[in-house]
Structure formats: structure tokens, C-alpha cells
């Protein structure tokens, strides 16, 4: 049962990370963020105490809400400026999936991770978020990609330590990344005397 939940989480994370590469709709970005953090929760809940895992889940969802509220506050024409080439993105994502598949067993061995799903999901999130960071300089994409990067890191880090402070500080960092992203989205529209 646990194995199938973990597998489901990996598939969720992979699909959500991939879906965001194919569209420029901000709603998909926020939704994928929520799905990614749900997947992260399913993967870290077996290794961390439930309260700590829920902290990360709530922080991730809250981050999505913060970014979503900021995009809603923007004038319509500035909400997204992305230009996509889905074919290129598809090829790049496939290359990253292949790299992840070859690297995941090595990472699992090096860090002594308990489950292969952790390294697989963690590396997928990190790899695809790096791709998004490289492709699109829009503040929304940057902050969403950084959040995905942190989500991937959390999956790997959770099996290395179970310190409460680490979980709390990670949740804080996730929220601060969302706040920084929200600020970057809204700052050009703010008055200089704010």
C-alpha cells in the first residue's frame, strides 16, 4: 500500500512538473505547485513525523496562494509574458527525465536513501525546476521554479534529518520565497514611496 502511494506521488510530481512546461497559464503554474507539494507530503510523511510533513504541505500550499493572489492583483497584460516552444520543452524535459533515471540509483546509494522513489521524485523536481529557471525569467516562473526546487530538496533532505528546526526553517524558506516572488511581481506597480 505504502509503495503504491509513493509511486503515485512520483507520478504526480513528474506530471505536475512537466505540465507546467507546456502552458503559460498562471493557474496551471499554481495548481502544479499545489500538486507538487501534495506529492512531497506523500513522500516525506513516512520518514518525518506527520506534524512536520503537514507543515511543509501547508507552507507549499500557502506559497501557491500567495503567488496566486499576487498574480490576480496584477494588471491583465503584465500577468504573464512567457513565450513557449512546446516541442523544445518536451525534448528538454525528456532529456532531464533520462538523466534523472540514470542518476537516481547513484544518489540513493550515496546518501543511503531508504526508498528509490525519494531520489526519483527529488531529482525530477530539481531537474525540471532548473530547466524552467533557465527558460523563463518572469518573476512568477522564477519563484514557482524555486519553490519546486525546494520541494525536490525537501524530499531528499527529509530522509537525511528529522530535526524540527530543519522542517520549520524549510517551511519558513518556502514561505519567504513565495513572499519574495510576490514582491517581485508587484514591486513595479507599487508606488515609490511605499
Amino acid at each position, binding site marked *: 500500500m505504502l509503495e503504491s502511494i509513493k509511486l503515485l506521488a512520483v507520478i504526480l510530481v513528474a506530471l505536475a512538473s512537466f505540465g507546467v512546461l507546456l502552458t503559460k497559464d498562471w493557474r496551471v503554474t499554481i495548481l502544479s505547485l499545489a500538486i507538487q507539494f501534495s506529492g512531497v507530503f506523500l513522500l516525506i510523511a513516512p520518514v518525518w513525523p506527520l506534524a512536520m510533513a503537514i507543515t511543509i504541505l501547508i507552507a507549499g500550499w500557502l506559497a501557491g496562494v500567495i503567488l496566486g493572489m499576487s498574480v490576480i492583483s496584477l494588471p491583465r497584460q503584465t500577468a504573464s509574458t512567457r513565450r513557449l516552444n512546446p516541442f523544445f520543452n518536451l525534448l528538454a524535459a525528456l532529456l532531464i527525465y533520462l538523466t534523472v533515471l540514470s542518476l537516481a540509483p547513484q544518489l540513493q546509494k550515496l546518501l543511503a536513501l531508504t526508498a528509490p522513489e525519494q531520489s526519483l521524485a527529488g531529482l525530477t523536481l530539481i531537474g525540471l525546476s532548473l530547466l524552467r529557471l533557465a527558460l523563463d525569467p518572469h518573476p512568477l516562473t522564477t519563484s514557482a521554479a524555486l519553490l519546486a526546487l525546494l520541494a525536490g530538496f525537501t524530499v531528499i533532505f527529509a530522509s537525511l534529518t528529522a530535526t524540527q528546526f530543519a522542517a520549520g*526553517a*524549510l517551511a519558513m524558506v518556502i514561505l519567504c520565497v513565495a513572499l519574495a516572488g510576490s514582491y*517581485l511581481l508587484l514591486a513595479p506597480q507599487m508606488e515609490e514611496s511605499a
Partner: protein
Amino acid sequence: MCRAGRLIFIACAADGGERLNAILIWVIFPGLASILIYLLRRREIAVHFTGMTIALALAALAWRLPIGKPLPLHLWTTMPAINISPSLPFLGAIFTLENSLRPALTIVYLTVGFWCGGAYAARAGRYFTPIGLAIAALVSACLAIRPNSLAALLIELIVLLCTPLFSPPGQPVRRGIQRFLTFQTLGMTVILVADYFLATVSLQNRPMSDLRLAMVAVGLGFALVLPVIPFHSWMPMLAGETNPYSAAFICYLLPSSVAFLLFGFLIRYTGTGIAPEIFAALRTIGALMVLSGGLWAIFENHLGRLLGFIAIQQIGANLLALSLNENASPSLPLMGVFFAQLLPSGLGMAVYALSLCTLQQRQSLLTLDDIAGRARSHPIAAAGLVVSLFSLAGLPLLASFPACYALWSALTHSYPSLGLLAVLGSTFLLIAGVRVLSALTRASKLTSCPPNTAWNISEHRLQGLLIGIGLAAFFAIGLSPQILIPYLADMAVLLSNPFP
């Protein structure tokens, strides 16, 4: 002892005498103060003045108050001795500010107080001081946290706090800030995972190849955060796109704090048997950064971006100073060079940035062509720019020379080729300074300073005063290094001693 210190003692004594904690004084209090100061942000002068006063008071307390040692005050006969406890457990981590960390705390708060003092003159914005004070609190928490690797998470919080400094309200978001956030976040994740990997490898007697891989991973994490070439691109971008004073503050404080963290890592993993290789790598990277920073500085036409290359060169010099010893230990005298570099380097960057801000207020563009002939209209700012560049290059009789001389001597004694590269890098920065001097003094028909313009002082009184004090400090430290440099150099020894 300063007045603020007495007030805290009295409050503590009234509360039973045992409840005062070092974390409360140097982490929680400045953190709360930064929030309160933020609420005052409409009154900009009050914000900067209050922030500077608090930072300097905390620096004075760090200088004078012993931690973990009874301190009899004898305000009345039955008054118990005050004891500041060094530790505070929090969510499974332990924050410990030992007495040996007091010099580091003094430097952190002195630096923040010093930079807050110039923030108003530099028009750094109303967010500068609250964020500066919060950064000081987080840097103190970084020094205190055990296990040390969790400090990477706090460094990431510092990075995220900087966002409003680099992207002020009402201005478009530039790429430099996004790249800065990306590299720092990536670096934080790599450091945390690599540290765990390194600890596992060290404990489990794994093969040497695994140990090497772990060290490379740790090195990669620090390279991303510091930043080390080739991850440095955000630094000149950021320095060229934002207020030079804010950029200089972060480009100085963040790498210095991270270098200190790296210093802790080096001490921790000295016994792994791979230390000589790490120090050799640090030396080579440091020398290359000093050289390439200087080389880029020669060809850079934008004075803001030039600040980024100066910062890269200073980081290189820090790495060189850290690598002087084959085995890291805080008590080794050569480690003193690292600490001796901190103050002159900070002074140089602050005066350079303040001078740049002064010039920027009249003309927003900061290329060499745009500032042509500005020495006639802004002689003090022009002098500040040139002298700070010369000082940072290590010109004799200026502030950085004693530390640079010590570094070059130690390098050429043991590694002549790297010493030559370091001297060459500084020479390149000197040439960049001569280029700036030439641009500032040449007449130009394109700018507001055509030929035959009369010399006059156009700087604001406060700007002129602060740059003037900075210029005097360059010569004072350079001409009498025996007053200040030994104290800074001794910090390396003090750090290993519980009661300096």
C-alpha cells in the same frame, strides 16, 4: 560600559538575575527591533539613526560583556552577579553564542551600524536599515546555530530578505536579482545535502573517492553561495542594476559571513585526511578570482558593475587568506590575515559605493563617459571613488595595504606563482582606478562638465562629511596599522579562546 548595557543589566537583575541570554540580546532583540524600525519607515532619518544606534550599542555590548561568566555590578550591596547564559535550545537545534564569538559579533554589529550610518546619505531607501538589522540578527544566529550546517538555511533567509533592497518599489524587476535568488537557493540546498553526505562518509570509513566527492559537493555549494567563478555573474549584474550602496553592503556582508561559515567547515573536517587538497583548491580558486576580478575591472566601463568585480576580487582575497594554512585552526597566526582584511575591505567598498551614489544623484548613468569631468563638480566624491579603489588594490599608505602585504608575503613565501597572480590582480585593480581617475578629470563636451568648468563642491554636506571621514580613515589605518590591525588579526586567536 555603555548605558544600554547598564539598562539591560538592571532589567535582568530585577528579573532574578539568571534569565538573560546571549541569543536574546544579539539575535531576538535586533530581530524584533528591525520589525519596529520598519514600522517607522515613513520617517527615514529616524529609521536610519535608530538602526545605527541599536547596531552600535549591540556592538559595544559584544565588545564589553562577557558571556557565560559572572559579572558583579554592585549597584547595591545584595545585588547578585549577572550571568549571561550562552545557549538557547529551539526546536531541536541549539543556539550557542560562546564568549569566543564576541569579536565576531562585535564586527557584525559594527559593520551594520557603520553601513546604516551612511544609508541616508547614499539614498539607500527606507528598507535598508530594518533589513540591515534583521540581517545582523540572522548572521548572529548563523554563528550560534548547532549543527552548523543548518546555518545555510538562515543564510537563505538573509538572501530572501534582501529582495526589497535590490528591487525597490516602482522599478522594473531586473535579471540580476532573480539570478541572485536562484544561485543562492541552489547553493543552500547543495550545502545542506553535501554536509550530511560528508558527515556520513567521515563516520562510516567509506572509500577516499566518496570523501572526495563529498568535498567537491560541499565546495560546489559554497561556490554557488559565495559566489566563486563561474557562478559570479549575478554580482556585477546586481551591482550595475541597483543602488550601489545596497549592492555593496550585501556583496560585502554576505560573502564575509559565508566565508566565516566555510572557515567553520574547514575546521570541522580538517581531520578527514583530505584537507591539503581542499586548501590547494581554495588557493588556486582564490588566486584566479583575484586575477580575473582585477582583469574584468580594467575593461569594465560601468562603475556599478565595477563594484561587482571589486567584490569578486575581495572574495578571492578572503579565500586566499583562508587557504594560507595547510590545516585549518583558528589559533594559527596566518588565519589572522583573513580577519585583518575585513575592516579595510568593508571601508573601501562603503566609501566607493557612497561616492558612486553621490555621483548618481546628479546623473543616473554611471559609465566612464557619463562621469567624464565630474571631478570638477564633485571633487570629494571623485576623491572617494579613486582613493577607495586604490586602497582596495592595496596601494601603500592606504587602509588595505597592511593586510594585502601580509597576504602577499605569506603567499610568495610558500607559493610564489600564486603570490604573483594575487599581486597581478591587485595591479589590475590599480589600473582600473587610474582609468576612473582619468575619466573623472578629463573634460568632456558630452556631459554637464564641459572644458574650463570651474571647480566647486556640489556634494550634499552630509555626503561630503561622510566621504571625508572615510578618506581620513583610509590614511589613518594605512599610516598607523599598529593601532587596529593587530586587534583584527588577533581575532583568529580569540576565537579559540573561551575568555578573550
